[in-house]
């Protein structure tokens, strides 16, 4: 069992949310809070739907959108998700799916980082890429998509290229980082920044039929061990490209790792690498010394 290394809980301003809690309890069906009531409470009490969501969760009420999560995640788990900030570095193939799944899971704050705009060759695989969005920002598309899915989730869209120079600034308030980059060199800078901030990094990368996933926890240097010999070079994706299904698979595995790290259950792929081969349909886990 892994212990979480960061603190989720901050003091609540009990007085300011007491009234809205009474209202929410009056509108709840059992312990489930319908979206209409969440939205009405926000309007009546001059709060954001996010603030209402936190008030509901701290009162033991589950926003109805999470009903199908609840056999997997408790209302307390949902509160942990809500109080977590996850940075998604790259909003392309992996990042589009990662942002989507984090928002549907109920992660309270997502920092979406990508300097690029959509191009035609993104349309084969990137969830956020649409014909309408060609030429527009990937990070802003992530924010727009989340606001359609789950307005209780805050997205900070940063149109910047991540590096070790700006990493500390971009990651202000971030509890977990998700690697959705397309450069090995930048990945290793991301790994360094996460080590410096002592935050977990969930790594994923893809090429053709293949992918890999690693959770690098504070103190580990798994990514440097994996890539150390080819830090400057390109991966095999430069020749293989990426089809539609590989980013969806690997992004989902990354989000599962994020969820486990937040709730502190299960066994992340730590000091190990999960190797995914969709051509031969093999999933193998190898230990990697840290």
């Amino acid at each position, binding site marked *: 069992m892994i212990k979480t290394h960061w603190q989720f809980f901050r003091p609540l301003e009990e007085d300011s949310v007491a009234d809205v809690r009474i209202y929410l309890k009056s509108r709840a069906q059992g312990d489930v809070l319908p979206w209409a009531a969440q939205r009405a409470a926000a309007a009546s009490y001059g709060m954001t739907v996010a603030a209402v969501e936190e008030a509901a969760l701290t009162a033991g009420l589950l926003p109805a959108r999470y009903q199908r999560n609840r056999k997997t995640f408790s209302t307390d788990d949902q509160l942990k998700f809500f109080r977590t900030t996850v940075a998604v570095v790259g909003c392309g*193939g992996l990042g589009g799916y990662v942002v989507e799944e984090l928002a549907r899971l109920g992660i309270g704050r997502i920092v979406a980082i990508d300097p690029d705009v959509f191009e035609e060759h993104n349309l084969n695989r990137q969830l956020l890429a649409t014909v309408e969005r060609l030429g527009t920002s990937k990070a802003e598309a992530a924010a727009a998509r989340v606001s359609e899915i789950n307005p209780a989730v805050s997205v900070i869209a940063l149109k910047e290229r991540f590096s070790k120079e700006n990493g500390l600034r971009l990651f202000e308030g971030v509890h977990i980082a998700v690697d959705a980059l397309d450069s090995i060199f930048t990945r290793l800078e991301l790994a360094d920044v996460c080590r410096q901030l002592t935050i977990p990094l969930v790594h994923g*990368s893809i090429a053709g039929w293949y992918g*890999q996933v690693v959770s690098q926890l504070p103190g580990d240097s798994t990514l440097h061990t*994996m890539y150390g010999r080819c830090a400057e070079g390109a991966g*095999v994706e430069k*020749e293989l490209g990426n089809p539609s299904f590989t980013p969806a698979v690997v992004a989902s595995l990354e989000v599962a790792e994020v969820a486990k790290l937040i709730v502190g259950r299960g066994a992340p792929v730590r000091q190990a690498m999960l190797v995914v081969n969709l051509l031969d349909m093999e999933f193998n886990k*190898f230990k990697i010394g840290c």
Partner: protein
Amino acid sequence: MIHVVVKLFATLREGRFAEETREYQSGSDVAGVIRDLGISEKEAALILINGRHADLSTQLNDQDTLAIFPPVGGG
């Protein structure tokens, strides 16, 4: 001579194999094996011998299992 189980992953299998027991001269190192297989050094991003991280210069012993992974860096 030594016998080494060589496991290849992802693109390294193409035109080669997934797993084979191969015979090498005693004292052979990883660099010699990947040269024998026609794999370039930059294609061998991660090398594990018996599940432990190894390098090109690591010498192989009889009955070792050598696993070679290419760099996968897309997103």
